[in-house]
């Protein structure tokens, strides 16, 4: 319990710190009370029914940027969630918890290197890492499904580090 609260507090701090870098054009969570801090502190914020549109991974960079708040990026060969994405996951967790009927699919992806099936398994691992984080934040398992697209749906075309780093990701997809 205390660990959970700690995690939540940490997430809130990160959310506040990271506010300026989170694009708000299409926020998954819209707080209509008094601000991010209150949302975290209250734990019971008003969550608008803003739909989070799913975006085809093949769309332009611009679309990808507008949806930065629902994509978690990973290092090569890694499924560890980097601290800078904790705020995003916390915000998503609150959004999901606000409506028990809400369902989210976490879609794991990899870069293009290596075999298709092994990459599918690596993407699955990333999706499940996010699912576990949501779990720790109190999201019910029944609301989350972790699936993988492996390397089949790159967000960005290209065979260099810049493209690869944008393709190693897990996306929140509300269906």
């Amino acid at each position: 319990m205390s660990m959970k609260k700690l995690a939540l507090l940490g997430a809130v701090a990160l959310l506040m710190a990271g506010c300026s870098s989170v694009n708000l054009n299409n926020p998954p969570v819209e707080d209509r009370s008094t601000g991010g801090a209150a949302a975290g502190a209250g734990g019971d914020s008003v969550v608008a029914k803003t739909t989070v549109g799913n975006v085809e991974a093949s769309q332009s960079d611009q679309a990808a940027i507008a949806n930065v708040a629902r994509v978690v990026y990973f290092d090569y060969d890694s499924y560890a969630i980097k601290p800078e994405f904790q705020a995003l996951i916390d915000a998503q967790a609150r959004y999901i918890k606000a409506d028990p009927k809400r369902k989210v699919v976490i879609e794991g992806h990899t870069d293009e290197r290596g075999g298709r099936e092994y990459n599918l398994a690596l993407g699955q691992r990333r999706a499940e890492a996010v699912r576990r984080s949501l779990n720790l934040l109190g999201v019910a398992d029944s609301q989350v499904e972790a699936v993988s697209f492996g390397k089949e749906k790159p967000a960005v075309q290209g065979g260099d580090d810049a493209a690869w780093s944008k393709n190693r990701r897990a996306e929140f997809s509300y269906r």
Partner: protein
Amino acid sequence: MLKRLLLTLLAALAVVPAYAQFRVEVSGVGLTQLPIGLASFRGEESAPQKISAIVQADLERSGQFRPVAAQTGVLDENSKPDLVPWRQNGADSLVVGSIARLADGRYDVRFRLWDVVAGKDLGGQSYAITQADLRLAAHRIADFVYEKLTGDKGIFSTRIAYVTKSGQRYSLWVADADGEGAQPALTSPEPIISPSWSPDGRQLAYVSFESRKPVVYVHDVASGRRRLVANFRGSNSAPGWSPDGRTLAVTLSRDGGSQLYTLDVTTPGSEPRRLTQSSSIDTEPTYSHDGQFIYFVSDRGGSPQIYRMPAAGGMPERVTFTGNYNISPALSVDGRWLAYISRVNGAFILHVMELATGNVTALTETTADENPSFAPNSRLILYATKQQDREALMTTTLDGKIKARLTGQGGDIREPDWGPFQKQAR
């Protein structure tokens, strides 16, 4: 039914006068290649398919034949050809034949194989077939020649499956073993991966993302009917058939993590049986052809390696020991060889291991090899790779000396699987 379907499809395709583009890009020199002459078949210049060229390309791709420059003059199967000029050019054997259109619109294809050195008739055959089956007839001729001269069964009339991506359209194709004559089995706006032929060559299992998550279908090739066999929570992938065709090994994440399960495909809706219990990735299950083992990929040791375990479940033992990334195991039907992809200095390279000795050979110098499968006679490996940034399908001999690029559909081409020998029903 199958035949009629094929005929209709092929007739539709045949409207476009599409001569096969033969580019058997053979690299390297085999150690013991049989020099063979292929005379132009009488009548083939006005036929829809150049039979002798298809036969020659087949034999070349096998790596066990070396074509000898053709002599001028038309030969056919009816009379004993003048073998002297062929002998002088170094041919050990010679294929002659003819193709003629019959009154009912079908074609009569005949051939004879000669032992040039002994001046001996090694036999021949004739086929009365529709235009749609001309390529099949050519592959049957290549099979006949191959069997007579090498003693091994020919694989030229078998089929392969592969996937293409063209724009945002994914298609699963069934094609001749040379990649030609492809017919679509499935088209989807979402990815298709991991096609796998059933042991009887009638069904394809594959992973489709059409429901925006990976699920496994079994697809009857002749009728186009298919059924969803694995659609559990999470990801469903990597189907591999047991040799008796009754069981499909798959990777499921329904209990968290990618783990191996078996499905009884003879009983729809039956509960999957869990095979592995690990906190690591276990995937790409592949049965050995004697049904004894399931080979698979696991990162339980810290990096992906190939393991095998008794097919009914049990203690896995590690199979690959060199390198820190070994995936996509494929086993030869004769049980002697394991093909797989190994990462070497950042390049993904097809390797083959002789199972009895553990000796490993790198077979290519490309950097993005994927998804090997063996020809049913265990003499060639089919795999996907990239050449000049374009996806390509290749075959290679097991010593890596003879490689050929398969032609195919436009766009990206990938995920090949070589089908089994088929009953000669057609």
